[in-house]
């Protein structure tokens, strides 16, 4: 055994949590040795290409696959006739009243409901050959009227997407608190508007990809998938394919971004599994970008009619909103069609006290790709609507936008606070974030800059947006309203193996968040080992008994909590074993940086030595001690309700009056995510979120024409911002008191996307204030901006 200095070194020991340690993931990803789904090459793999519906809405009368099937290299051609035999449909059920579930199937059965829906699958020896055969598949469609306008789709006489449902409205709910209608009617001042946030695509850089491998000997299926939710997919496929979970494993290796677009069950996932089992060979499908833009779940697409009542003192008195969500062709599994529009309503009151609130929500099916979760889920729309109304109100009563917010925030002594939709905020720095942004962005300086810019006739504006969100949601709430599956718990299993190596198993599925690093930081610090000695296993259903994945800003809070508890349990086992092996009292054992020592002596032991003694050197420990100190532990964590994360964003923009190009002059974020595990990673998450928020505000829109064709299915038409469009930005963190979650963490992966569109919409409205322009539609492309300004000028001229 080695010798080392002993004594109490706790205070001088370097902290791992809170440090920007370099990421564990990076060396492989920087050298081309990551393992994304399409990088997995299995011998004998067959490749799938899909014939996708070129109609938005059509009856499928006949399918002739015979010519395609005869092409050299083609192994099989399949339609719903075969797939419906091999699989059963999936329904996203809900506890919600007045909700109608719709089936999710591998291939369109009887009818195609959006342009891009998979209808026929060609399986061939290579992707090139599979694609060659597509042209030979003959499908006889009887076109039906395409429903593109969500308001028309609600009409009871509209053509129906599902003949067995009463209509196209899949969800209809009303809820609130107080007397919103009456207060609005009697209010001294009201502001209102119709707000439109168009459809968006998550557009992870890695297109979706799936590879199913069926082992005939063991009758076991492994699905390699670019998914955020391997656990949810596994638990669902068990029923779809009628296989035990022990024979079905889902592995999400390296995943090239998700943002919600890889958080649902997709038809192609079902298909590759069913065909791999049927053919006894590995079956792979990798989307190209066009397929991804056509068929990956999309988001937003809401029309919100909202009205806010304010007193002369700037206090918010009542808020009312009618929300119509266009949820596309089916109710997505497991989140349901209620997800996005219900969240818009749920979070609409924001971080403010508004005693009277009323929301009416409808989700309507149309002939578009399905709506699914996307970074922020609903809240980017809530923030856009409310923050716009607030600025309109401030203008109306002649108050500064910062001051009106200050007057209405839930205050320090008012937490926990229940807002009108029933959501409860726990203590979070609502006001502090605003004050920090005002100070750090030099709000007064910016206002002076604005005045001088305006004096020169330039269109310069400043916009603020504050929001709050629930993160790390525990088992008492559902991550999606009414969804029956539990997403509120996580477990961790950590073991010290017989070589002394530490492996920590989690159920989450990192796809850019760096969770292999942050969870290792937590385990290392809580257990007492060096960071480099912790191996994190995640993104694999074989790792833990139950898991769901990474979404809804939950992983750091819930998996971090499970890791903390488990590391603590295992630490005490190590210390107990050591006290026997080193013949010292438990209280005198120190365990830090992977070294076990007896305080005040020079007796030390490595983890490897301890593991060998426990596992291999029989007689080194009394039998009853050996039974107790098995070197593994497993614990659950459930934060019950979760916690509140908040931020204020400030944007300053300038509009070019000639080209209507928008330049972002300043972007500053102040946020409260509780205790920071890794500052660089947190900043990176905010930057990325803001960049997507900028895309949502100014560039990105999925456009369907009146026949239901998606005319934005390339990266030329669907504009993702590049380094030239995204401005430099600064992010500040509150050093606030940690919330009640274990470890004091709040979730923070989505927030950037929630605040940025609202802040930019407010900044644009401010820049165009002299023209009486109020921005009520996003994305505000140069063309839209031009039209809005033109309309405002025409009205002024009248």
């Amino acid at each position, binding site marked *: 055994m080695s010798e080392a200095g002993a004594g109490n070194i706790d205070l001088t020991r370097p902290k791992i949590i809170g440090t920007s340690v370099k990421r564990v993931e990076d060396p492989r990803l920087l050298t081309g040795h990551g*393992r994304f789904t399409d990088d997995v090459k299995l011998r004998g793999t067959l490749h799938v290409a899909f014939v996708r519906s070129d109609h938005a809405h059509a009856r499928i009368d006949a399918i002739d696959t015979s010519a395609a099937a005869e092409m050299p290299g083609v192994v099989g051609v399949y339609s719903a006739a075969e797939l419906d035999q091999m699989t059963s449909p999936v329904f996203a059920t809900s506890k919600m009243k007045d909700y109608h579930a719709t089936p999710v199937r591998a291939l369109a059965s009887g009818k195609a409901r959006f342009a891009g829906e998979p209808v026929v699958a060609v399986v061939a020896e290579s992707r090139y050959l599979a694609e060659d055969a597509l042209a030979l598949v003959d499908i006889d469609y009887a076109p039906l009227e395409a429903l593109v306008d969500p308001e028309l789709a609600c009409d009871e006489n509209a053509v129906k997407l599902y003949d067995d449902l009463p209509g196209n409205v899949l969800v209809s709910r009303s809820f609130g608190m107080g007397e919103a209608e009456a207060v609005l009617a009697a209010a001294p001042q009201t502001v209102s508007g119709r707000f439109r946030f168009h459809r968006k695509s998550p*557009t992870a*850089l890695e297109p979706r990809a799936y590879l199913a491998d069926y082992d005939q000997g063991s009758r076991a299926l492994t699905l390699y998938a670019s998914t955020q939710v391997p656990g949810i997919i596994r638990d669902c496929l068990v029923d779809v394919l009628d296989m035990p979970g022990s024979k079905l494993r889902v592995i999400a290796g390296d995943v*090239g971004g998700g943002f919600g677009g890889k958080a649902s069950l997709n038809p192609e996932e079902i298909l590759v599994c069913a065909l791999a089992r049927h053919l006894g060979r590995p079956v792979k499908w990798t989307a190209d970008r066009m397929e991804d833009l056509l068929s990956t779940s999309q988001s937003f697409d809401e029309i919100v009619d909202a009205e806010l009542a304010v007193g002369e003192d700037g206090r918010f008195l009542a808020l009312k909103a009618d929300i119509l969500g266009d949820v596309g062709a089916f109710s997505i599994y497991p989140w349901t069609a209620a997800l996005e529009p219900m969240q818009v309503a749920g979070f609409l009151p924001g971080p403010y006290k508004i005693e009277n609130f009323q929301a009416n929500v409808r989700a309507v099916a149309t002939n578009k790709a399905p709506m699914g979760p996307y970074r922020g889920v609903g809240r980017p729309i809530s923030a856009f609507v409310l923050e716009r109304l607030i600025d309109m109100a401030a203008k109306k009563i002649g108050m500064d936008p910062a001051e009106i917010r200050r007057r209405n925030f839930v205050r320090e002594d008012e937490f926990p606070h229940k807002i009108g939709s029933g959501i409860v905020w726990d203590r979070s720095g609502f006001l502090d974030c605003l004050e920090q942004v005002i100070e750090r962005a030099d709000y007064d300086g910016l206002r002076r800059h604005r005045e001088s810019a305006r004096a020169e006739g330039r269109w310069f504006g400043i916009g603020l947006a504050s929001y709050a969100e629930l993160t790390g949601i525990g088992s008492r709430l559902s991550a999606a309203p009414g969804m029956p599956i539990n997403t509120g718990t996580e477990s961790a299993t950590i073991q010290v193996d017989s070589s002394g190596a530490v492996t920590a198993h989690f159920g989450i599925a990192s796809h850019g968040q760096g969770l292999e690093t942050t969870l290792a930081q937590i385990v290392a610090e809580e257990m007492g080992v060096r960071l480099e000695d912790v191996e994190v296993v995640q993104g694999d259903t074989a790792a833990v008994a139950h898991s769901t994945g990474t979404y809804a800003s939950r992983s750091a809070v819930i998996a971090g909590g499970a890791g903390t508890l488990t590391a603590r349990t295992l630490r005490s086992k190590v210390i107990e074993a050591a006290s026997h092996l080193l013949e010292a009292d438990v209280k005198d054992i120190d365990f830090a940086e992977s070294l076990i020592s007896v305080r005040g002596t020079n007796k030390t032991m490595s983890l490897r030595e301890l593991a060998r003694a426990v596992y291999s050197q029989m007689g080194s420990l009394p039998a009853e001690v050996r039974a107790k100190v098995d070197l593994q532990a497993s614990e659950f964590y459930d934060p019950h309700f979760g916690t509140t994360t908040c931020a204020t964003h400030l944007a300053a923009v300038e509009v070019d009056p000639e080209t209507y190009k928008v330049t972002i002059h300043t972007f500053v974020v102040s946020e409260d995510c509780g205790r920071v595990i890794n500052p660089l990673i947190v900043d990176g998450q905010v930057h990325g979120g803001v*960049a997507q928020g900028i895309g949502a505000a100014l560039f990105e829109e999925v456009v369907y024409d009146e026949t239901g064709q998606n005319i934005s299915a390339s990266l030329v038409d669907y504009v993702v911002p590049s380094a030239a469009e995204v401005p430099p930005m600064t992010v500040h963190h509150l050093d606030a008191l940690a919330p009640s979650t274990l470890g004091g963490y709040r979730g923070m992966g989505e927030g950037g996307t929630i605040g940025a569109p609202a802040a930019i919409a407010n900044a644009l409205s401010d820049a165009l204030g002299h023209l009486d322009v109020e921005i009520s539609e996003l994305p505000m492309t140069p063309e839209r901006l031009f039209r809005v300004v033109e309309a405002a000028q025409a009205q002024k001229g009248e």
Partner: protein
Amino acid sequence: MSGKHRLQLRVNGVAHDREVEPRLLLSDFLRDELDLTGTHVGCEHGVCGACTVLLNGDSVRSCLCLAIQAEGSEVTTVEGLGSVDQLNSLQEKFREHHALQCGFCTPGMLMTATDLLSKNKQMSDEELREGLSGNLCRCTGYEHIVSAVRAAFADKGGDGS
């Protein structure tokens, strides 16, 4: 079926002599024939830049090239930079500055940045952003990528190279 063509080229310093279909894309050749899966494919239509490699020292989009167009060329992919145990200085800067999250855009970013570093003495942030604007990243918001490449330029200046 189209006949196969002989293709001779060097990739990361290694000579290859293969028979390929004329329609085979360079990106697919690298990924499927040579198993160099570090070159990623994000769009297959020339916009995202994930598939960027160096062809005789110039950055090109390998999804827009046929493999046979690389006949007689020297191709450098991300696997030709540093290794897991010994990152090169640009890769090291990416790691230090947290310039990657999911890592899908990273190989293309590194190849474009390598090209910029080899052809420019200095670049302002604005020029850098312009220079990187053909490579999309959906995760980082570019802030840390710009700092990493800026730092790589500073280092280069320091070396006097």
